[in-house]
């Protein structure tokens, strides 16, 4: 399939964000002074190279030969039959190298880091997928890599920790705060402010200070560009709906962004409902949070009435984050995308359903999108088409699933 990211990026970039990274009231650059010039330098480099044919050719080549793109768009016929409604197509990001969409972005940022002469990369990670994707590209490009990970997450994700170490990365346990993803992000920011001269911070999602939300979007938009072309090729028309899970929101923005001008395509982002919104134990800032400022951007947050960030809960470590990318906050307020939640229990049921009907084991993150798709598809007719982002594979979650079901693996 022909890819033309340069032209697409130039066209779609015309509107939002503004030059300081604002999506309406959201986004921006809320960081301490020391990081302002490094962010300006990063923005200058990104703005230059995202229009540079040589850079884009190298990025495309790596996506093709290293990541394994384009990823298939697969018609899940038996799943569609089992649900008995709309036809469901899966965008198979689970088939990428390292097993998730995260690698699209880390390849892009590592190429940029190399152009900027940075020999050391750092990353934050929750479940470990972005950490693995960062360690992977660091190995590929011969860079030093340090990954910050909450001590609690290290305990829960031992295999990914070992995987990162095999790849040559140093994994640093973060013992502060709730010892999870948000604290890992704090610690990565502290490293960056200390080692800013030689270090490139690879943020894993469409959040953080400008230019990260727009940069990660550009590196992930390949998902939606491919999906749009593939669905047209396979069905002769655009889908009725897109569905993707939203933690920070990078797989969702990657799918949604190239469809934003297609007003007949309804867009659904699905947050982690955890034990249910009414229990307070969830990770759904868009559906149950308020606007605030954290990690360099204004967005919807899980926060208390004093403005302190509160702990989140989800069965899926990749969705277990109290913020969300600012472009999602904007898409919600503008009404262009709709946001809803599914619970841990519903996500787990969807995990099993796809595994048994299609022989595809989804990540628990992606299982949230699948659970909502089942709800949506059941109310639609057979002529309707839903494209779901199958953002990652579920191998990493086997222990979590087994534990929940009382099985010792």
């Amino acid at each position, binding site marked *: 399939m022909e890819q033309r990211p340069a032209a697409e990026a130039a066209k779609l970039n015309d509107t939002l964000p503004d030059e*300081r990274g604002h999506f309406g009231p959201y986004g*921006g*650059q*809320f*960081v*301490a*002074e*020391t*990081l*302002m*010039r*490094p962010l300006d330098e990063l923005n200058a480099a990104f703005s230059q190279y995202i229009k540079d044919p040589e850079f884009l050719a190298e990025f495309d080549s790596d996506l093709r030969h290293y990541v394994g793109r384009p990823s298939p768009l697969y018609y899940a016929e038996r799943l569609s039959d089992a649900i008995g409604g709309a036809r469901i197509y899966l965008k198979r990001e689970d088939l990428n190298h390292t097993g998730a969409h995260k690698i699209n972005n880390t390849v892009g940022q590592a190429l940029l880091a190399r152009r900027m002469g940075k020999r050391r990369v750092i990353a934050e990670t929750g479940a470990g997928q972005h950490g693995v994707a960062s360690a992977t590209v660091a190995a590929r490009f011969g860079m030093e890599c340090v990954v910050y990970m909450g001590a609690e997450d290290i305990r829960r994700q031992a295999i990914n920790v070992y995987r990162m170490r095999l790849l040559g990365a140093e994994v640093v346990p973060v013992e*502060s*705060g709730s010892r999870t993803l*948000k*604290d890992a992000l*704090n610690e990565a*920011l*502290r490293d960056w*402010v*200390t*080692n*800013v*001269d030689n270090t490139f911070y690879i943020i894993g999602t469409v959040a953080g200070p400008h230019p990260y939300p727009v940069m990660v979007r550009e590196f992930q938009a390949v998902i939606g560009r491919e999906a749009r072309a593939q669905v047209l090729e396979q069905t002769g028309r655009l889908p009725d709906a897109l569905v993707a899970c939203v933690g920070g929101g990078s797989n969702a923005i990657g799918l949604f962004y190239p469809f934003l001008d297609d007003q007949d395509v309804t867009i659904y982002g699905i947050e982690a409902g955890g034990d249910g919104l009414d229990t307070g134990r969830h990770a759904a800032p868009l559906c149950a949070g*308020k*606007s*605030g*400022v*954290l*990690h*360099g951007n*204004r967005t919807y*947050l899980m*926060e208390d*009435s*004093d*403005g*302190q*960030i*509160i702990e989140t809960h989800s069965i899926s470590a990749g969705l277990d984050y109290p913020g969300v990318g600012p472009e999602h906050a904007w898409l919600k307020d503008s009404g262009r995308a709709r946001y809803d939640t599914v619970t841990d229990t519903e996500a787990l049921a969807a995990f099993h359903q796809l595994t048994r009907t299609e022989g595809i084991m989804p990540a628990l993150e992606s299982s949230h999108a699948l659970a909502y798709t089942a709800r949506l598809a059941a109310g639609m007719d057979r002529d309707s088409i839903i494209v779901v982002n199958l953002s990652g594979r579920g191998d990493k979650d086997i222990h979590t699933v087994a534990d929940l079901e009382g099985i010792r693996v």
Partner: protein
Amino acid sequence: MSRIQLRFRELGEQRRKALIPYVTAGDPQPDVTVPLLHALVAAGADLVEIGVPFSDPMADGPVIQAACERALVHHVSLHDVLDMVREFRNSDKDTPVILMGYLNPIEVWGYEDFAEVAAAAGVDGVLTVDMPPEEADDLVRALQAHSLDTIFLLSPTSSEERMHLVSQSASGFIYYVSFKGVTGANRLDVGAVADKLDVIRGFTDLPLGVGFGIRDPESAAEVARVADAVVVGSALVGKVAGLVDSPELIPAELAATVAAMRTAIDAQAVT
């Protein structure tokens, strides 16, 4: 003239340098803070800086992170911090009080309402670590409307363009972060600080305070030679951490540290 401006003018006339201790409000428990502030003033503090506890203090090192966590065990909120300032003001009408913290507690309260209550409580200046001037127009307007000084940071990475920008939004004084890093690290290079302050003085007449990495009387005196004010945080907060089980000792212990720094700073001014 604001209390901060007034204080710097007095100090200038006396050819003295300001000493600004920082403590996190409510650390290790809420009833310590007001007596501690009075003790710091008695020991020679010219202004006091009060840290507003935040769950995610991204610009701070482990010492102040731990202080935030200790305060948040007691759910110390921005409202509580302003109550402490009000109580402090009852018996100290002169010492300028600066709030230092992160934006989100102010953001959820609302800039206007916060500014009004803070000014009434006796706050003189506000430093919001994660809000550069580019994002600060509305907050600056709200604070200025209530005659609160707007204190901003400059750092070793700040370009001359940014020095100009910051000097347009800042009032009271400008806080120069002495090195690339987080609070409490040990990377102070006074020579490099002096060079940068010279450049900054080309853009502003405001007093220049220097913080980060000032750990003892010697480093306080060295920095005082080149800056208008010396901010000491982690060196004090680290002592609080060692006294959580005997909080009644905290005011005297921290006052002793501040007094030693005061002596060293004033001694270098004479020589």
